[in-house]
């Protein structure tokens, strides 16, 4: 365990901002959701690394990550249901074609 904490944090920072880039540039809603998963995952890594390196006797970061994974699963399932419903209505999943709230 001689790896410095900052190495993990740099990796998760790069992952997070790759997610930001994808979220800003993508038009396909599923690709935006994939970028969102990247960002969530980077935050999870940070929780775990802080738990292990700064407070190794506690388990708070562990449980935060555990609950975050559960919530991310729920959120993704619901978002994909919404996206498929939109696909049924307008036959594609580009955000540019979504300018009405109700059909």
């Amino acid at each position, binding site marked *: *365990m*001689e*790896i410095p904490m*900052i*190495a993990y*944090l*740099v*990796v998760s*920072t*790069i*992952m*997070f*901002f*790759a*997610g*930001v*880039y*994808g979220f*800003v*540039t*993508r038009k*396909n809603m*599923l*690709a935006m*959701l*994939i*970028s969102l998963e*990247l960002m969530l*995952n980077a935050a999870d*890594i940070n929780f*775990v*690394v802080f738990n*292990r*390196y*700064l407070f*190794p006797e*506690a*388990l708070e970061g*562990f*449980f935060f*990550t*555990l*609950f975050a*994974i*559960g*919530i*991310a*699963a*729920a*959120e*993704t*399932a*619901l978002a*994909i249901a*919404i*996206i*498929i*419903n939109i*696909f049924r209505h307008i036959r594609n*999943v580009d955000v540019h074609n979504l300018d009405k709230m109700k059909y």
Partner: protein
Amino acid sequence: MEQIANQVIFGLLALVIVVCSILTVTTRRILRAATYLLFVLFATAGIYFQLDFTFLGAVQLAVYAGGIVVLFVFSILLTSHPGDKAPLLTSKRRVVGLIASIFGTIVCGYTLLTYPFFTKPLTSVITGEVEMKEIGHALMGMDKFQYLLPFEALSVLLLACIIGGIMIARKR
């Protein structure tokens, strides 16, 4: 010797995470993006294993790699033809995204690199795998630092999510 092996494994995992997460957001085929996301999630599980949070790594593999990515692949195949390429980005959009992400990386990286973290020496406390019994007691206990209420709230959330998913996606 073990430390060198640890460092080599961490280097490999970090390389996979960095390369695949950048490829995830730059590839033009969305199915490939989902595949690269799968590699990123695997490498993240590897990092959890390396930090001795074995249970968390297993949860990551089961929920993310086993559940969410499958959901993504199914919905991608439902909503687009395989082999479709996303249209090339307009330069304005790409510049905005690049500025946002590079600026953010620089600001965050600078803050992280200059902040004095007080890392405890890991040899002073008992390291090693978190015991399953400890996790179970913390999840089901009602005392301080125990998590029965979030656990139950999450179970209600998952139930609401199931019902909501059925309600949204059903045929009318």
